[in-house]
């Protein structure tokens, strides 16, 4: 029974730590998550492959436990999907807890059936004959505990050493000098203008259009800001653009003639430019209204 209850208790305890209400940091949540998944993985293996004698050697058992634990999360997410439950902490934790409970019940049933049919937990260890049921061999529990410790060490030592070496190497890669990447200077419609989706209707007083200019990785330069209407430059100004800066510009666009025609307005900074289209908000005269095309 303890082979079922022990992982079940570990799973419940670890899952309770994971609840978002606790608002714990990841260094606490991660070990708790791994512990919960390992406990559920243990239950999976216990339920599916039965007693350790039937689940093969330690690496096979340990590997199956880790894999089952790892696959528990997507399995729960997929099982919750048909019920419209999203992939979120609380449903996942509840789902894993429910799954652990079901596995625990299934494990107990399996033990019960095994006892009824003459196989089961009595034969938990490989090679233990039935006639030893009256009492374990002296020193066996101790050697088993030592063996388990050594196996855990055989798994953890290379993992810890690899983590150590890997972490140092990652830091060396990330903190080492890297060649400079190509810089850029961009111009974009900003604020409400970033949402321009149709030709803009400009009132007689004109309209102020916000524009954003970003420079990164380039030397300080002097760039020409130009405002074009239908390709013709109607205003320009020289600006100093510094690297790592974002400039918010406001460009006043004059009202186009009230002829109903759509005109292209371009705002350029250096070689980069934005283009949008405007038409006059003023009432069109009879001549303009009568025109089929501009």
């Amino acid at each position, binding site marked *: 029974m303890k082979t079922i209850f022990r992982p079940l208790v570990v799973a419940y305890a670890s899952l309770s730590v994971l609840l978002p209400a606790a608002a714990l940091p990841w260094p606490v*949540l991660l070990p708790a998550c791994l512990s919960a998944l390992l406990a559920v993985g243990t239950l999976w293996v216990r339920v599916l*492959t039965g007693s350790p004698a039937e689940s093969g050697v330690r690496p096979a058992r340990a590997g199956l436990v880790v894999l089952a634990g790892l696959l528990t999360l997507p399995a729960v997410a997929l099982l919750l999907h048909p019920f419209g439950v999203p992939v979120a902490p609380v449903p996942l934790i509840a789902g894993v807890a429910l799954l652990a409970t079901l596995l625990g019940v299934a494990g107990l049933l399996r033990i019960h059936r095994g006892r009824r049919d003459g196989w089961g937990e009595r034969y938990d260890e490989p090679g233990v004959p039935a006639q030893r049921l009256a009492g374990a061999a002296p020193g066996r529990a101790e050697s088993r505990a030592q063996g388990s410790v050594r196996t855990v060490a055989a798994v953890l030592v290379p993992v810890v050493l690899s983590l150590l070496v890997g972490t140092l190497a990652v830091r060396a890669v990330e903190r080492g000098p890297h060649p400079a990447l190509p810089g850029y200077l*961009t111009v974009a419609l900003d604020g409400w203008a970033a949402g321009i989706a149709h*030709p803009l209707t400009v009132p007689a007083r004109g309209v102020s259009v916000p524009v954003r200019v970003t420079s990164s990785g380039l030397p300080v330069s002097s760039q020409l800001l130009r405002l074009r209407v239908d390709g013709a430059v109607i205003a320009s100004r020289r600006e100093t653009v510094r690297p790592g800066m974002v400039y918010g510009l406001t460009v006043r666009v004059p009202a186009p003639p009230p002829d109903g025609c759509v005109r292209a307005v371009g705002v350029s900074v250096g070689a980069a430019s934005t283009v949008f289209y405007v038409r006059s908000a003023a009432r069109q005269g009879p001549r303009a209204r009568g025109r089929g095309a501009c």
Partner: protein
Amino acid sequence: MSAVTTRPVPGFTGSRFGDPRSRRVEAVRCAVTLTVTGAAGTAAIVIAYRRAEWGQPGQFGWFWAGMLLFTLPAAYWAVRRHTSSRLRLAVLIGYGAFTYLPKLLRHPSGPLYHDEYAHWGQSHSILVDGRLFEANSIVRVIGDFPGLHACVAAMAAITGLSIWQAALLVLSTAHILLTVGVGVLAGQLRPDPRITAAAVILYSLNSSFLFFDTQLGYESLAICALVWALVAALGAIRATTVPARVGWSASTLLLAAAITATHHLTALWLTGALGLFALVFTIHSVVVLELTTPARTAWALTSGTALIVAVWLGLVAPHTGSYLDPYLGRALDQFGGLAGGDDGGRELFSKSVLPWWEQTSAYLAPGVALLAMVAATILWWRRRHTDEPVTHAGTTGMLLIGALYFPATMLILTPAGAEGARRSWAFSYLGLAVVVAPVVVALLDGTRRLPARPTETGTVLTGAGLAAACALLLVGNNAAGMNPSYRFPGPPVYGSDTRAATPEVQAAAHWLLKTQGRGIRLVADRYSGLILGSYGEQHPTTGSATFPAYDLYRARPGRPISPQLLAQLRAWRFEFLVVDRRMAEQVPDINIYFETNEPLRHDGVPAFDRAQLTKFDVMPWLIKIYDGPNLAIYRFDFDSLRIPVRPADPVKPARHDVRVRTR
């Protein structure tokens, strides 16, 4: 009592030599040796990457020196006769962890490979929305296989890690599990600990082990589950009691379901492998009657797995067939054409930057593998009367799986089949590794009995020869299986999946996300689409034969754009067009602008001219909202499609201001 306890337990069991004290000393020696060589090897890999990044020569030499510095001592400790079972397990776990480093160090901070962007974006989308089975715009079928994404997103949601950190945790665990799993699988057939270790080392020589099956991709998780599903299947086949058989069979089918929900090809490979086992056990059972139950078990597992895969592909992922078909179908057509004397083949290592010795190793590797398979077949035949029936039949199945490596190698000569051929090696090498491992151990043991020379010398010479062969396979397979731009960093290159993430594209993706929101449909080239579809959280399309979005770019200035295409774009609510003007200046590094079947010239000349890409500036139905040195973003305004372009007409200058504020 379970029958499993009545036979030698498969796997990493080892004979116990020496007293506990000497075993501890041996363990400490091994730990110190492998830590020092591992650290030195890692340092050499870091140097290799740094040299590549700065454009200095020698990265290939440094890389392989670093790899061999650790792998050869690790192989020695793993295959050594006197290594204890736990020490062997520790060495193999360390080996799995070390072989994860080349990919990790390649780009530790985020996705880098083409598929990684898609899988990262898919996982991120699940974390944000909580919804599975959402369509992915970079790799269209991955939404139907959410196993990996659900795992990563759920891990991130529960622990508070980022998607990338959670992915690293899942993938490194899967990689170590894969490494150990190959050993356990080999141990299911031959419970000799040295054979299990040799199988692990041999499997790690395949071209996908270091870079492909360590990336954030669905195969990385699925192939690990496949190996363990085969372990469980062999457990079921071997079991002699009903409860054990039922338990192992249930494990196999649950793992098959997990694999099917994770990766289509791996699920198909698993079904095929189980079917092969069923066939082989059935044929053997004609002569050996005790194999009847194992054969029935194998058929039951094959049927169950096939049913799971068929139901998933039929109901959940019906588009998978049309996604996979062009790769295999066209490859076979092209291969048929080559056999008929057509001139449509690939020139291997054309314009490659690989050093001559890597290229030579790549050509020699299949030959060495063939020799090893011939030796394995001879050994299998010689042991046909002495091997236990299940072991003999299981080895036959593995031989057949391993033999698939060779026809797949021929497919690499075809443009369409090259990718599929490379991807198949991770599966066929499983069979190859399991059947060749006994040959390795037999060779090492055989030299001990040679009368002509001292025992130690013979063993050392054989060991050195085997190590050299392994090194050649490792170098050659990776050279053949992975593009140098995937293996090594370098300056940004236009048209390279791994070097497409320039600051400009990333800034554009960030700007679009910040100002326009997420989940927007847009038309883009392959490389901008990678960044916009992942970091940008948008839905880019690069076009296809039925939705030729690339015709927008192809249209000559002043010529009309297909009304059908415009209607499609409007009906499907596409909002933006992204134009990378480098398409008119450079040829992509991997010779693809949009997708593999694009109707564009690929003769070393840019497929577009500048006028084709700047014509959008004067189209009133396209509003240019963003522009940079290379990249421009336009908003579609389909309502303005009928507005004519007005010729330049000077407007009387009016009062206007340009106010500047700095953020």
